[in-house]
């Protein structure tokens, strides 16, 4: 970038995370608030890296029970059966709805894992002070933010199935422990993405350019 490329923080200006207006930071003054909307001002999200790590580690831990434990129990006249997320995908595949199997596989297994791994990659790249590919890493972060909610799919599927299949003697479906673990993974990865500050991706490059 040319000489003209200055960031707000280099000029001592702070962007309000609420309304986006700029405020000149006064040296020695703490707890400054935005004049326009009253939000507390921070140059960067406070403790961004440690908070992102905390949410990420919690997601890694819960990702295991979410996939290993059953997400629902089906009881019918012909016996009972427990399904994990993966066996649900396999069932959809064999019953001929391969496109739905693909959607559930992507939303429930691929997306959460890809999300945790790529956010880990982004945090590590900031900690190592990478100067390369800041733009590509910013794009990766945007994708992460966008796909976040779609992993909730299986939680909703279980909710609807449990509500509908309560046919006393014929068949019942009950939620399994993985449903709670899975919901927690989705919420935690969303918190992790929110805790991360994409502006950190550009700082090593800025220091390098100066």
């Amino acid at each position, binding site marked *: 970038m040319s000489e003209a490329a200055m960031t707000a*923080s280099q000029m001592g200006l702070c962007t309000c995370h609420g*309304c986006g207006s700029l405020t000149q930071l006064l040296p020695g003054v703490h707890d400054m608030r935005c004049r326009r909307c009253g939000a507390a001002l921070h140059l960067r999200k406070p403790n961004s890296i440690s908070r992102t790590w905390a949410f990420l580690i919690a997601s890694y831990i819960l990702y295991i029970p979410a996939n290993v434990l059953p997400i629902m129990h089906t009881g019918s006249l012909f016996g009972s059966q427990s399904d994990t997320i993966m066996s649900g995908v396999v069932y959809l595949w064999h019953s001929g709805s391969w496109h739905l199997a693909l959607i559930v596989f992507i939303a429930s297994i691929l997306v959460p894992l890809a999300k945790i791994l790529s956010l880990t990659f982004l945090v590590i790249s900031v900690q190592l002070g990478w100067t390369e590919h800041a733009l590509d890493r910013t794009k990766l972060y945007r994708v992460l933010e966008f796909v976040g909610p779609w992993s909730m799919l299986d939680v909703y599927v279980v909710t609807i199935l449990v509500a509908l299949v309560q046919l006393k003697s014929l068949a019942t479906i009950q939620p399994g422990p993985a449903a709670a673990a899975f919901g927690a993974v989705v919420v935690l990865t969303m918190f992790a993405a929110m805790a991360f500050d994409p502006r950190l991706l550009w700082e090593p490059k800025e220091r390098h350019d100066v």
Partner: protein
Amino acid sequence: MPDFALTACHECDLLQREPPLPSGGIASCPRCNAVLFRHTPEMVNRGLAYTLGAVILFIVANAYPIVGLEVQGTLNQTSLYGAVETIWDNDMVGVAMLVFVTTILIPALELALMTYVLLPLRLGWVPGGLAAILRTLQAMRPWSMTQVFILGVLVSLVKLAHLAHVVPGLALWSFGGVILLLTAAVCTFNTHELWGLAAEGE
């Protein structure tokens, strides 16, 4: 301090001058391509129309059953709230709350707050507490998951279609409309322009 003419990118912090925008134009960051702000023609009129439409359909979507299952002549139906209650009764309090918050509470608050902002603007005055409301709306947005919920309903319908006769309810179609109108409303609801109004209002 010339801060009215300057803006910083929220994703890479690049400091830049706010360009004047043509009608319907979009300003994006030259370094990272993030959308900085846009100009929305007829923002209040269109935004209010979409929002009120979404409110009506949202009420219908919550008042009627989403799907029913017909087995041996008996029909077992569930509304969205009914589904939340059933999963709560199955000792899944966390899951029940998650579903309630993301599909009922947050979308309802989102619609209520957008109406509270847009209706007075349409009638010609700036609503009180605009700054706090805009901040609340911004924080809530990622947790509004109606679209994902509908995909979830469709997946469950396919899973059940083998077991029994599935009857789509009125709320299923209404939810489809809610998604379209809510998305249109959110895209029209231009926070950048509204922040300008919030600043003037003080």
